[in-house]
């Protein structure tokens, strides 16, 4: 903490206003009130550190009809909050026109979304993060899914949502991008799948039997 104060104190007032543009406005307001200059810097630094931890708070896949296809929460949310978040966000996102921004400001966060066919991929990030980058992370994920499933469609994700989770876990960890190489992700996923291969064959033969029987 001591150091942080030093750091902020070293930037001039003008730069501070510039930096402050990175904080959520509300914080800044609260801060500006503080007359005590030292306290001012101290508090400012606190919120500044908080905001600087760029990370993805959650990933959400919703269908055109508002049905949830995949959710991954990197920040703690209760089940109740989760349903509220999903309801609120899908209400906003599904109703946005096609030509508008792929970002929405929401409760002091930003939600970046992109539509692929009938699926909306959404990621919630901090307000000061780079939206375009997150948009590309979404696309990166979709490309990996696509490579894995072979022209992926919504149905793949519905029935193999656990696989989508595995892939997501290889891409993002604790809300940060851990691997940006498609090949590496593909390699580790296929290594995992090889172990499963035998079981998978068995499964498909069973389902074939079922299919035969019901025919």
């Amino acid at each position: 903490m001591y150091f942080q104060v030093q750091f902020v104190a070293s930037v001039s007032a003008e730069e501070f206003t510039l930096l402050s543009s990175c904080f959520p406005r509300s914080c800044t307001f609260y801060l500006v009130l503080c007359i005590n200059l030292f306290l001012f810097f101290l508090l400012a630094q606190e919120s500044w550190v908080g905001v600087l931890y760029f990370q993805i708070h959650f990933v959400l896949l919703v269908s055109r009809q508002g049905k949830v296809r995949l959710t991954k929460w990197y920040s703690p949310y209760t089940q109740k909050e989760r349903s509220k978040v999903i309801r609120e966000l899908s209400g906003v996102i599904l109703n946005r026109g096609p030509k508008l921004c792929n970002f929405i400001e929401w409760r002091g966060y930003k939600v970046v979304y992109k539509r692929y066919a009938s699926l909306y991929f959404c990621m919630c990030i901090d307000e000061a993060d780079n939206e375009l980058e997150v948009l590309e992370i979404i696309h990166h994920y979709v490309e990996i899914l696509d490579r894995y499933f072979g022209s992926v469609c919504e149905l793949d994700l519905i029935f193999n949502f656990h696989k989508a989770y595995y892939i997501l876990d290889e891409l993002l960890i604790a809300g940060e991008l851990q691997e940006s190489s498609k090949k590496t992700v593909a390699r580790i996923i296929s290594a995992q799948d090889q172990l499963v291969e035998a079981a998978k064959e068995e499964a498909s033969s069973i389902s074939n039997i079922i299919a035969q029987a019901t025919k």
Partner: protein
Amino acid sequence: MEQLKTIGRELAMGSQGGFGQSKEFLDLVKSIGESRSKAEEDRIVLSEIDILKRKLLEPDVPKRKMKEYIIRLVYIEMLGHDASFGYIHAVKMTHDDNLLLKRTGYLAVTLFLDEDHDLIILIVNTIQKDLRSDNYLVVCAALNAVCRLINEETIPAVLPQVVDLLNHGKEAVRKKAIMALHRFHRKSPSSVSHLVSNFRRKLCDSDPGVMGATLCPLFDLISEDVASYKDLVSSFVGILKQVTERKLPKSYDYHQMPAPFIQIKLLKIMALLSSGDKSASDMMYMVLGDLFRKCDSSTNIGNAILYECIRCISCIIPSPKLLEDAAEAISKFLKSDSHNLKYMGIDGLGRLIKISSDIAEQHQLAVIDCLEDPDDTLKRKTFELLYKMTKSSNVEVIVDRMIDYMISINDNHYKTEIASRCVELAEQFAPSNQWFIQIMNKVFEHAGDLVNIKVAHNLMRLIAEGFGEDDDDADNKLRLSAVESYLQIISEPKLPSLFLQVISWVLGEYGTADGKYSASYISGKLCDVADAYSSDETVKGYAVSALMKIYAFEIASGRKVDVLPECQSLIEELLASHSTDLQQRAYELQALLALDARAVESILPLDASCEDIEVDKDLSFLNGYIQQAIESGAQPYVSERERSGGMFETTDYHSQDHHEVTSHALRFEAYELPKPSVPSQPSAALVPVPEPSYYSEPHQPISTSSSVSERESSEIKLRLDGVKQKWGRPSYQSSTSASSSTPPQAANGTSTHSDGGGVASSSSSKPRSSYESKKPEIDHEKQRLAASLFGGSSSSSRSDRKSSSGGHKPAKGTANKPLATVPKESPIPVPDLLDFDEPTGTSDVAATDPFKELEGLMESSRQDGGGSTDVMGLYSTDASAPVKTTTSVDSLLSELSDSSRGTYHQSQTTKGPNSKEALEKDALVRQMGVNPTSQNPTLFKDLLG
């Protein structure tokens, strides 16, 4: 036909290999897909929960079955239902030796549990074991769980293993170990502080993926402690240079950009490191310049890097050349058709405007366009930009715009934010007092309960104090205009509570001040307020206090007071109120009405809200009385501390102290606050005293003395505070002193409360430009708007702002419906998402029965087959060169995305079915009730022959 349909479905499922799941699971997913309403879905899920509860309790569930149950639980949980009954089974599954099952177990627990869940303790042991496993896949699965589930207390349990894994042979494990450490650092920095050097070392890892992952924790570390990482600037610059020169393996390329995610991360770190550091900034000029040249602004990822460069430049000490580059990039963004890029452009402009304020001028019209864009996100960003460039010359236009927008939206969170921005700007740049009050009225009227209470106190203070100039005339005018505007507004229905408090207070203080309005008129209005908002005790309290002030002023000026009948009934009602506060106010008012003019004048002097109240903590005015009491045999006061100090000395004192202790237990917090260590003269005499005269005597004389002194000045009542605590005894009993002590407190309440910053006194009084009249011709209007916004923007404004504003916290109160005085600007309708009965969009084909349209569709499918190549052609011509070269991937992907990627136009073309595989899947989607967006009938052709 019905039969055929079912057979078709079974067939489709069979041919898909059943996705590796059992029929029950497929049925579950299918039935949920087919459910048409939320209620139906809930019913299905609830019955599924019942089934699973039963099945999980069965003895000897085969492991494969159990795995599927767990996945079904995950599915249920994902749909927002509680699956906690099965958590323990997921935990058990992590113990399994089979990797497949273990992995499922870990997946389920990471989704079910968070780090504070009780079951975590059962997993830690397994994780520890798995981290030591020989199979790197097991280790990876365990590390994934570590990143999600380990909390502060359990970090030490796994930390040694995680640290060991930093040198694991597999890069995937090293990477995850770093991310785990990163997460530990965030959870509890102290637990890993000794390991920080590991991050530095891992920056040189042979695997670029590990290096990339290391940037995440380094970013955090650097943002906390810039100075100790300054030495890394050159390394980061070097890495970035190598990345841009494509030294990394090809597999890190993304849309022809070399490792863009790593580049962005590096830029973020460099912005931190060289913020305000000239020498560090110098090192970066080269590579930043290179980036501007190399970045392909036709791809999204290229723009992402450009944007990051702009951000970086806004943080470092830039060279003129770089500023030029950045400005050019911004103007490209702003000129783009894509809303995303415009958004980024506005954001970048907001950042650069701090450095060189003339940048905005060339983009005036683009900014205005964005301000009038139907896209809410873009509009908000533009308001943020305007907020940043506000100065006294354009404050009126900007604040007017903001308020118009504020009125038009329903989003409480943003409303709060924009309201507080308006207040801040108005406080800092207000050209005139009247304007300020008007703006505040508007803000309170439309966002009242969302505004921080300090703003209200500031406003009251401003009205009471004026703008600090010694010009009573102007102050009076200000007050009069405030009173007039409030009298107009007060009769409107449903005003926010906070606003009513302000109105009541101002009317009470200044309503009758200049004689324009009669006391009965004002008091009638105040009674109306108390009546209309009878459920709001705060407002009522303010109203009663205001009434009291008005009557007090009347009495003091010697006029006869006629209490209105409604006021009388109000008082009577409040005398019996459940709220002690209201009751007390009512009693005070009643008591005040019975007093004579002199007494009233000293209780509530006219316009005394700004007078400083000096609290005489020593109660020196009582010295004479005390002296008298001591002389007549009373015991001198001994402070609590001295009493406890002298506890062992005398027995009779001890008994008194004992009594003190018991009385302690009865006291409430509030009485404890002022410490009894106030130096007091009597306490100098340390002789302990027996009790008798201690309780019975004091308060009677106090009240007489205070009522005597009341006639001298109003300040005295506050001194009673001191009396209370001096004798260390709640003085509830003396109702006379209580009732006489509170009125001035109420009257002066605002000035004591409003401890926020002072109100800015920008005195440049420009006439308010009649902005409303500009509406008609768009273009002309835009020009003028631009002129009023940007004109004379050379004078940097923001830095000389006073840091005074009302703070606020996001509140989630109920917003009052904005009175639609302006055309609503793109309100977002929020339909009930989960109501599936109604199709949500135009492209929703769910309603049409595919079989009915079979004939026609089969026709169109053939045409579609041909047409699909056209779609692909479109992609490749539309998209720029890099996309074209990656078509091998994209062609698959375009199947998925109906919006063309690479370019930003989200074209509305429905996707063209062009591969058999996709067709089959699509058909299955339809069968499952998933409702894809496009028509895809080929499957039926297959089915029906």
